[in-house]
């Protein structure tokens, strides 16, 4: 008799416990959903819907001036069949790669010195590199026309030195101008993650390395460089992706020889009026950029993928 009563009581307690637990879980889930709502709405509006729209568009077809509501992969096939498209993509890929590498070569010593060697004016120097980002992108690009042009800073400088007699036209409206300007734009985006990574390296590690027998150069190779890898990878990834799809710089400074993949996409939404093709070409660019991002994370950008 008592045994069964005890068993009943235990069951009661168990049920009470599980319903109480379930209530707590339910409340937690509600709170979680509420907290996720704003970011989900934002993601939906700013990222998912536009990309989905673009994807949807890429499977349609244009005949004359009419958008036909069909499903076709023709636009994607065009990318591979028409030489201009995939060639231009490879060219942009190559250029973006050069831009990223050179931007790193320039930014690394800069970041290293300011992060690790300068004590007094650290903040000012850091700001000096960041402040140009506050100036309009277009204006900074057009400034390079003034630098590279016939009456620009570079030509005047060379003429004053007596190296050339007449202004050279080879600096502007070509691939060279595009690459130079892209590098200039990329530098702050490489500098910031590199600076962050280099600054975080504790001085004690450097002391330990030197104490254990490594000279300055070997300390750099074996300790500083490996530890700055997350910053390097993030910097490379950011500058590469920025350079890959850019179309304004080629438009303003590229002339004919400096045209890039971004321009071709842009044309589809202008005069040519082939939005589906533009969407398909754009989606291909997006996919490649995503692959580069994923590869970068794998290669060691564990922290600081987005700064």
């Amino acid at each position, binding site marked *: 008799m008592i045994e069964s009563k005890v068993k009943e009581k235990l069951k009661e307690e168990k049920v009470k416990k599980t319903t109480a637990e379930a209530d707590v879980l339910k409340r937690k889930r509600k709170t979680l959903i509420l907290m996720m709502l704003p970011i989900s709405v934002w993601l939906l509006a700013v990222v998912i819907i536009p990309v989905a729209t673009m994807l949807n568009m890429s499977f349609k077809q244009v005949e004359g001036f009419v958008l036909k509501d069909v499903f076709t992969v023709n636009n994607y096939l065009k990318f591979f069949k028409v030489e201009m498209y995939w060639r231009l993509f490879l060219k942009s890929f190559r250029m973006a790669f050069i831009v990223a590498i050179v931007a790193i070569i320039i930014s690394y010593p800069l970041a290293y010195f300011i992060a690790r060697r300068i004590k007094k004016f650290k903040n000012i120097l850091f700001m000096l590199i960041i402040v140009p980002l506050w100036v309009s992108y277009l204006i900074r690009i057009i400034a390079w026309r003034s630098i590279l042009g016939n009456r620009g800073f570079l030509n005047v400088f060379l003429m004053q030195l007596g190296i050339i007699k007449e202004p050279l036209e080879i600096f502007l409206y070509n691939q060279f101008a595009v690459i130079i300007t892209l590098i200039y734009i990329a530098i702050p985006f490489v500098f910031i993650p590199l600076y962050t990574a280099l600054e975080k390296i504790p001085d004690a*590690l450097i*002391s330990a390395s*030197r*104490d*254990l*027998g490594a*000279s300055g150069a*070997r300390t750099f190779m074996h300790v500083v460089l*490996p530890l700055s890898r997350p910053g390097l990878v993030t910097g490379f990834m950011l500058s590469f992706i920025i350079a890959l799809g850019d179309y304004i710089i080629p438009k303003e400074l590229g002339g004919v020889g400096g045209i890039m993949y971004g321009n071709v996409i842009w044309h589809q939404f202008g005069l040519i009026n082939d939005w589906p093709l533009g969407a398909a070409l754009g989606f291909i660019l997006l996919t490649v950029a995503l692959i580069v991002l994923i590869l970068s994370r794998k290669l060691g950008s564990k922290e600081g993928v987005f700064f």
Partner: protein
Amino acid sequence: MDKFEIELTNITKRFGNVTAVNNISFGIRSGEFFSLLGPSGCGKTTTLRMIAGLEDPTLGRILLSGKDVTNVPPHRRNVNTVFQDYAIFPHMNVYENIYFPLRMRRIPRKVAAPRIKKILETVNMSRFENRYSGQLSGGQRQRIALARALVNEPKALLLDEPLGALDFKLRVAMQIALKDIQREFGITFIYVTHDQLEAITMSDRIAVMNDGIIDQIGTPDKIYNKPKTAFVASFIGEMNFLEGKLIRKKDDTLVVKIADFEVICERGENDFLEGEDMLVCVRPERISINSHIKSGNEIIAKLKRAIFRGSKFEITVTFNNNIELVSTVEDKGWNKSFNLGENLKLGWEKEDTIVFPMDMKNRIIRYK
């Protein structure tokens, strides 16, 4: 005079206007466990870093094994450092960390392997070869830092407060382990600490530093029982400080008047003048309470406070209304039935009285 393994001569270090180390000179013998002891900011870490080569002295010379290394960079000096926060390379596993100094000496992996294995065994970390710094506890990281610094068999090992971050029981265990390793390897240890108990436990000799200068160098016994300055007396162990006036100088004793009492002490090498103000010191554990045996010095004072400290009682008494004296007695030696305000007789021997000139008063450290 035996040859010193490490010798510092007139070393001064200035950072801008601040003089961190002020003209110190001393020598350390081979195989010695030598400690630099002092409060924060006394210059002990700076001195250690100068021996390592991580700081350049402003003035003076440093000799290692007879060679002038003052201008030699750290990676070419045959001394290694164990840092306070261990400084384990986070991007290498334990094995690579320990291989690092050998690699810098261009010793190939195959040759290095047995040495690495052996040192890991010595510090009891053989199972942890493939772990990374983030996967180790504080004590484990400390042992790896030690192994890494020892694997190259340096002439001297420099340790910068290596046990500071460990909890008490682990610290005590590591103190013993470190001392064992030092004896086994026979390597000179230069140990920086602010913990006077630690220094006394482990060292062959201690240099007590304060404000950039060395107050005294000696064995733990000498430092404890025969401190040369009031600072050393106050920094090591517990010490009572009383103020009085020298009223009589005899052949082998000095008589100092403190309030209504006369205290005698042994006359040392110091020359004091009659009428001079003096600091009179005696260790709490040397003071007995209500002893049946007559002591050289006896004072009657009122019981102010009795604190239980586990194995001992800490008894505070007052006389003359405001002068305090502390005595520590064994648990058995204290009659707990005493009332506050009751008169007690405190006694100690004249050999246990230490005196200093009054101008040393401002160098006493009041906290530890």
